[in-house]
């Protein structure tokens, strides 16, 4: 078993699936790429908007955990001022 992989290490959360709670009330689930001056760069992101989603947030998060991330955006930047709280999806 070589354990051979690619990917240079970036920051602690690079490549990890996170939940970002936005100050707007929207919630973003996706892979953290890196945080830059413009915000958090994410990959393969699903977004919960309380004004648009039929499911309550916790139920929606449970669905993402069980069935995987229903990707809406392949790449996006969550502005630093929007990214209020970050946690791991798997916890």
């Amino acid at each position: 078993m070589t354990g051979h992989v690619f990917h240079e290490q970036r920051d602690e959360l690079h490549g990890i699936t996170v939940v970002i709670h936005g100050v707007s009330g929207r919630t973003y689930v996706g892979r953290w790429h890196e945080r830059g001056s413009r915000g958090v760069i994410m990959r393969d992101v699903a977004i919960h908007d309380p004004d648009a989603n039929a499911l309550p947030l916790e139920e929606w998060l449970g669905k993402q955990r069980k069935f995987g991330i229903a990707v809406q955006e392949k790449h996006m930047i969550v502005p630093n001022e929007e990214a209020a709280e970050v946690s791991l999806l798997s916890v």
Partner: protein
Amino acid sequence: MPYPEMMVKPMRDDLIRLGVEELRSVADVDMALANSTGTALMFVNSVCGCAAAMARPGLAKALTGGVKPEKLYTVFAGQDLEATARARSYFGEYQPSSPSVALLKDGEVVAFVHRHEIEGRSADQLASVLTAAFETHCK
């Protein structure tokens, strides 16, 4: 864009050495999964070091146990694109991620380990999750 083959060969070989059959075409996948009966594991391989580094060793440890799926398959996400897309078409409402592991019984997914359940965990932890699924569904 796929990586050069010579760079991913060690990752393919990690699984082939375990007795996992690699499926590299749509026809390969259909031959394996269409109308399948019994238990089958599908490991969606990945080059990603954030999660795959522990995924393959985790599977290796899980397969050392006494109970395991009757058939073991793998496709390589990002490399064998069509085969991977076809394999995912058998996963029902489970969303694509890589690496990931699907356990199927009589063609239906009965357990699924997503990438987000592999990230940050050790090979032993993943092996425990897989072993529990094998014990539940493969006896």
